[in-house]
């Protein structure tokens, strides 16, 4: 089962390596990982997607909470949440049909007479489908950010 876990940690050198290290040390999977500073410059927010049953996810959140640099952990899957990921794809002009891009809600973010860079936003699942649909257009390069998430209720991951 795929799960999205978000956390706030001290914006300090070494903090990220403790979080990432925990995953390899305890044999948990990381499918994707995003980190960025928050509006409070002393904190970074990290979102990761991982796989595991309920017991594994519970252990992951407990072990993360134990790290001294981790301030707060939220298993987003515990309640409703919105997940978004950004996908950028590069095509040669001749291989891609702009109508198809439009149907897939892609947005052209760069274009010259040789190539196009196209942006897609959606859930990770939706983007998987987009990539399938684009297979026949022979993308030159594909890049995904990994999912980010925010709960869709009054529960916030703030301090």
């Amino acid at each position: 089962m795929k799960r999205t876990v978000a956390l706030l940690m001290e914006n300090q050198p070494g903090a990220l390596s403790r979080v990432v290290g925990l995953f390899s040390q305890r044999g948990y999977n990381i499918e994707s990982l995003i980190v960025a500073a928050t509006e409070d410059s002393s904190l970074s927010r990290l979102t990761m997607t991982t796989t595991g049953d309920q017991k594994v996810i519970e252990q992951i959140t407990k072990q993360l909470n134990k790290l001294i640099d981790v301030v707060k952990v939220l298993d987003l899957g515990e309640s409703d949440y919105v997940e978004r990921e950004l996908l950028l794809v590069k095509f040669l002009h001749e291989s891609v049909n702009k109508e198809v891009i439009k149907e897939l809600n892609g947005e052209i973010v760069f274009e010259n007479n040789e190539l196009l860079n196209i942006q897609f936003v959606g859930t990770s699942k939706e983007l998987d489908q987009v990539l399938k649909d684009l297979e026949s257009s022979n993308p030159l390069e594909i890049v995904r950010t990994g999912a980010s998430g925010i709960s869709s209720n009054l529960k916030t991951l703030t301090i």
Partner: protein
Amino acid sequence: MSKEQISGADALMRSLHEEGVDIVFGYPGGAALHIYDAIFNQQHIEHILVRHEQGAVHAADGYARSSGKPGVAIVTSGPGATNAITGLATAFMDSTPVVVISGQVKSNLIGTDSFQETDMIGISRPIVKHSFLVQRAEDIPSIIKKAFHIATTGRPGPVVIDVPKDLTDPEYKFDFDYPKGVDIRSYKPAKEGHSGQIKRAVKLLLEAKKPVIYSGGGVIQDNASSELTKLATLLDFPVTNTLMGLGAYPGTDQKFLGMLGMHGTYEANMAMHNCDLILAVGARFDDRITNNPDKFSLSAKKIHIDIDPASLSKIIDIDVPVVGSAKECLDQIIEELGVQSHKIDHDKLKPWHEEISAWKEAHGLNHKLLDQKPTGGKILPQQVIQSLYKETKGEAFITSDVGQHQMFAAQYYFFDKPRRWINSGGLGTMGFGLPAAMGVQFAFPESDVACVTGEGSIQMCIQELSTCLQYGLPIKIINLNNAALGMVKQWQDMNYGGRHSSSTYEDSLPDFVALAESYGHVGIKVKKHEDLESAMKECFALKDKLVFLDVDVDPNEHVYPMLEAGMSMEDMHLSKEIKTW
């Protein structure tokens, strides 16, 4: 009042003094030289020069485990830091409060592969509770404050402070001001258990007909032995202790079942398997206890008290998890039982106590081996422990290394008090015993301290004999010499058709008596059963001397009981011939 201006190195020593530290174990080197000069220039803290950094950390650990106060080690960068790693991992696995201060190359050299540079923070990351890389000299006091707070509270554990050399430069001075308190927003360990969970726990305790209290190192760490004993007495429940928990409940008490697990007693393991309720306190259901978790005590309800939420339901599903300190939670339970005392019914436990007594009668350990002349002619290792127990009247601090001798010590020495049994349970570090004993002896200069070891383990930190000479430590080294890596050999006997692959070295062992003497100590060799007790007596009569008692023991002896891998806790080998399944 104007504040005093001092260097980072002096601030480090002053901060340690502020934390109440009066002894540190260490080994100098380039990156730590400013610190060593500061050590020289102060009077409050004694520095003990070990002979290997592993020894420094184990000694600090032994000091911490026996005294309950944090232990401190100081090492230099690079090889000094890497030599400290085994000690850190040992402290981490057993959750002991140790602070390691490592010198680091100058800040501007970090990342350049400079001389004796190693990424200590990176290397130690998975085996520390937390670590700090100091970035400004002015931060040293607050980092020390935080480090001691983290190491000693919640589930204790080792903390590393890596200090680049330029930050201890005597030329750079700043205002010294030691923080009064500490507040780490992301670290607030629980103390009291949730009152609802306490009530649920009490309900199960009162309903149980076949209960067991299973307690571990957490009870010792949290100084909760008297609460544990009080609760067991109140309820008339039998108690078993883990290898780390020995001494938390009086070893000579009638209700004590002995150690449980891999080499636990028959009655303890049978009780765990057949009970209807387990009250686990400060223990963590690790694989040396549970054997196959899928077959672990299937009919029992489980209450688990632990300070670390991540320990709860990690391996075994728990009916009533309680997060909190052992002491507080046990107190809460005792208080609640006081309210409901009319419901306590000792009579209904009688059949259970009888069942346990019958198990003990059938296959309990034989604690009266000492007077029996061994049939094979060789002294039995168990007899040495019994002789040690007799001679020290059960009052000594016993440290141990890792192997058969460790298990024999755990099985045959009764520990009536906490913090008397000091061994590497989690990591199983050969080489721990002697340096740990140094730490214990420094904490308790007037007490008898014995290190029960094997000829394999003792050679892993043998260099510390020199430290013991320098500081006049009268440790008694009790070497159960079976001329083999006995525990390895036992496994090879049992699982590898007796093929002793690299587990023997009979013809190349040192003369331990001569070795001890060359370090200025006393060595005594014992080969015959009739000499054992008198040698033991002589050993402890030499009050001011380190004595190396080298006892030739039966090399064919195995440790039993032993759980059969992959099965339940009632599936044990009881001797070379007898198994329970």
